C-alpha cells in the first residue's frame, strides 16, 4: 500500500525532476510581469541563454501602468522604460503577452485563472508573492525572486526546499454579510503573519467547499500574508465548472483526460498534516485592519486595541508604532473612524463577484462628499463583464471613478497614490506602512465593507445595511 498523501504532496511528487533536498521541480506555467522580470531577461541575454519553454510562459503588464488616459501613453519615464523592456523581451523570446492594449490585460493573478491557464495540479510560479492565488484551483503556486525567474526562463525548473504541510480546517457556514475576505483576515488573525512560514496551507472543510472560485482565490491569495509558501484548495465540481470553456482550457478528448486526472487531486483520508489550525466560520464577522500588518485586525463591531493587550513585548512595540503611524487611539470604536479614500480592486478583490458585491451596497446611494472612491477592475475582461451588467453605471452614478485594470493603489507604483496622512478603506491585501503611498493609512476590508464606508464616510457594519 502506498502512504496516504496530502494534495500538496501529490502535486509536489508529480513535478520532481531531481529528488534531493532541495528538490528540482518542473514548472508548468510561468507568469511574468514588468517589475520583477527585466533583470532576469537581462541576465539571460548577457549569458547568451534562451527561454527554454516560451510556450509555458505568459506575460502581462499590471504593476506600474496608469488606470486612466492610457491612449495618451505612459507619462512616467521609468515605468515606460520598464514596460517597453517587457514588450521587447517577450518579442525577442516569443512569449505571449497581454499588453496594455490587449483586451485580456490585467493583474497577473486575475488573468491566469480567467484565461483558463490556471488549472488543477499545475506547478505555477511568478515573480510575485501573491502567486499563491492560483492554489485556489488545486495548483501548487508560489512566488519567486528575480534570480529564480531567470532560472525558470532558462531551465523551466526550480529548486525548492520542501515545505511542510498545514491544514486550515474551516467548519460551519459563513454567516450572511460576511465575505471570503473576512474569513482569510480571520484566519491570519488566528495564525499570525508568520504562522504559515515554511508551510503550504491546504484550506479544507465545509465553509471552503461552499465557496465560489472567486472567493477561493481571495482566500489563497492572502496565504502569503500568513507567511505560507502557498495555499491550496482541492479541485471539485466548482473548479471544473469554472475552467470549462475558457480560452486556454483543454478541449474535447483532452478535456476529459484532464478532468479525470484532476479528480485524484484530493488529500487521502488518512494523510497527516504537519500542522493544523481549526476555525468556525459561523462565528466570523466583518473585519477591519487597524494596524500595519494583516494580522492587526479587529471585528467591525470592536475598537482599536491597546498595546497593553499584547503579552509579547515585540508585538506590543509593534502595536505602539502601528498606532502612531495610523494616527489611532486605543479604544476608538472602528465605526467612528472616518476615511478619505476607498480603493476597490487588486488581485485579492478585483474580480467580478467582488464588484457585484460592492455594487449591490452602492446601488441607489451616493459616495460621501469627503471621500474619493475608485473602482479598478482586476482585468479588462472583468471590466467588460461588469459593464455588460451595468455595474459601471451603478458605481459612476454613486460618484465612484471607474478605471482601467491594473494593480493601482494596491501598491501605488502608478499615479494612483494615496496622499500622506490620508486614510483609505482598501480591498487589497497589505496594510504595510507606505504601501499605498508614503504616509498613507490603509485599512483592509471586504468589497462590501469598502463600498459601505465610501457611502457613509466612515466604517459601518455592512450587515446592518444588507438587512434593510
Amino acid at each position, binding site marked *: 500500500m502506498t502512504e496516504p498523501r496530502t494534495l500538496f504532496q501529490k502535486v509536489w511528487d508529480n513535478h520532481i525532476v531531481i529528488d534531493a533536498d532541495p528538490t528540482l521541480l518542473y514548472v508548468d506555467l510561468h507568469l511574468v510581469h514588468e517589475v520583477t522580470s527585466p533583470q532576469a531577461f537581462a541576465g539571460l541575454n548577457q549569458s547568451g541563454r534562451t527561454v527554454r519553454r516560451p510556450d509555458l510562459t505568459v506575460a502581462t503588464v499590471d*504593476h506600474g501602468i496608469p488606470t486612466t488616459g492610457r491612449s495618451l501613453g505612459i507619462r512616467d519615464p521609468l515605468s515606460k522604460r520598464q514596460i517597453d523592456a517587457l514588450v521587447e523581451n517577450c518579442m525577442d523570446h516569443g512569449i505571449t503577452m497581454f499588453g496594455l492594449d490587449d483586451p485580456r490585460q490585467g493583474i497577473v493573478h486575475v488573468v491566469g485563472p480567467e484565461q483558463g491557464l490556471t488549472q488543477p495540479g499545475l506547478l505555477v510560479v511568478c515573480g510575485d508573492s501573491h502567486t499563491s492565488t492560483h492554489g485556489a484551483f488545486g495548483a501548487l503556486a508560489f*512566488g519567486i*525572486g528575480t534570480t529564480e525567474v531567470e532560472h525558470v526562463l*532558462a531551465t523551466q525548473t526550480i*529548486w525548492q526546499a520542501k515545505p511542510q504541510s498545514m491544514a486550515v480546517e474551516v467548519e460551519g457556514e459563513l454567516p450572511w454579510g460576511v465575505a471570503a475576505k473576512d474569513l482569510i483576515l480571520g484566519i491570519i488573525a488566528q495564525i499570525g503573519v508568520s504562522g504559515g512560514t515554511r508551510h503550504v496551507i491546504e484550506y479544507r472543510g465545509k465553509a471552503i467547499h461552499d465557496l465560489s472560485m472567486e472567493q477561493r482565490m481571495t482566500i489563497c491569495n492572502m496565504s502569503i500574508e500568513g507567511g505560507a509558501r502557498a495555499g491550496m484548495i482541492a479541485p471539485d465540481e466548482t473548479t471544473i465548472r469554472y475552467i470549462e470553456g475558457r*480560452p486556454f482550457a483543454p478541449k474535447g478528448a483532452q478535456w476529459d483526460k484532464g478532468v479525470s486526472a484532476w479528480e485524484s487531486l484530493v488529500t487521502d483520508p488518512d494523510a497527516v498534516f504537519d500542522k493544523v489550525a481549526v476555525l468556525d466560520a459561523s462565528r466570523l464577522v466583518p473585519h477591519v485592519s487597524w494596524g500595519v500588518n494583516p494580522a492587526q485586525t479587529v471585528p467591525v463591531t470592536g475598537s482599536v486595541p491597546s498595546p497593553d493587550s499584547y503579552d509579547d513585548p515585540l508585538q506590543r512595540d509593534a502595536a505602539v508604532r502601528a498606532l502612531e503611524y495610523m494616527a489611532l487611539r486605543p479604544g476608538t470604536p472602528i465605526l467612528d473612524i472616518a476615511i478619505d479614500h476607498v480603493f476597490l480592486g487588486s488581485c485579492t478583490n478585483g474580480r467580478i463577484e467582488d464588484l457585484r458585491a460592492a455594487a449591490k451596497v452602492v446601488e441607489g446611494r451616493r459616495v460621501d462628499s469627503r471621500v474619493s472612491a475608485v473602482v479598478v477592475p482586476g482585468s479588462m475582461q472583468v471590466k467588460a463583464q461588469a459593464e455588460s451588467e451595468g455595474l459601471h453605471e451603478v458605481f459612476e452614478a454613486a460618484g465612484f471613478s471607474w478605471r482601467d485594470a491594473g494593480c493601482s493603489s494596491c501598491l501605488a507604483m502608478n499615479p494612483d497614490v494615496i496622499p500622506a496622512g490620508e486614510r483609505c478603506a482598501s480591498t487589497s491585501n497589505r496594510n504595510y506602512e507606505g504601501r499605498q503611498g508614503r504616509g498613507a493609512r490603509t485599512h483592509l476590508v471586504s468589497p462590501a465593507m469598502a463600498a459601505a464606508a465610501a457611502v457613509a464616510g466612515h466604517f459601518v457594519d455592512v450587515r446592518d445595511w444588507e438587512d434593510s
Partner: protein
Amino acid sequence: MKPVTTITGTMMPLDRGDVDTDQIIPQQFLKRIERDGYGEFLFYNWAHTDDGTPSSDFILNDPARRGARVLVTGPNFGCGSSREHAPWAIQQWGFEAVVTASAADIFRNNSSYVGLLVVELPQDAVTRLIEMASDPTAEVSIDLESQTVTADGLEEHFEFNPTAKERLLTGLDGIGVTMSHDDLIASHEEARPAWLPTTVDVSS
C-alpha cells in the same frame, strides 16, 4: 555572485519584528530595470523625512554605523512582497549578513541567490547580539563553513541548507548547474500529459 565564507564586522541593530520588504525598499524604487544602485534607498521611508532629508533619529543614518556589515533584527524579517530588490538594497548598502530568529521564505531564498548570508539563531541569541550591538564598535564573526556565529562570549551554531551553502561558498552560477541535468529535465518534459495547457496564443 561573489563567494561568501567568513564575515567579520560591526553590527547594526534593528530591534523590531515583521519587517516587510516594502519597508526594506519601497515601491517607488522598483521601476528601475537595473540590478544595482538600490543601496541608497534602503529603509527609505524610515530613513527619510517627508521632504527627503535623512532622519537623524534612524539608526541607519548614524555615522558610527556606516561601516556595519551585519544587520541584527527581529523575527519574520523580509515578509511580504517577493521583490529581490530587498536583498539587493541591503547588500548594496554594505551589509553582508542578516541575523534574525526567522526570515520569511521568499526573502531567504532570494538572499541565498545573491550572496547575502541570512543566519537564523534562537531569539535569545539574537537578543544578546542586539544588546551587544548598542556599541557600534562591537564585532561579530559569522563562519559559513562551520555554521557558527561568534561574538563577545557568544558562540552559536546555525542550521543552513547544504545546497544554498555550497552555492554561497563557491559563488557558482546556479543556472549552469541545473543545465547540466538537461537529460533529466528533458525526460520529465517528454512524460508530461498532452492536456496540460500551453500559452501559445489562441486568440490570433
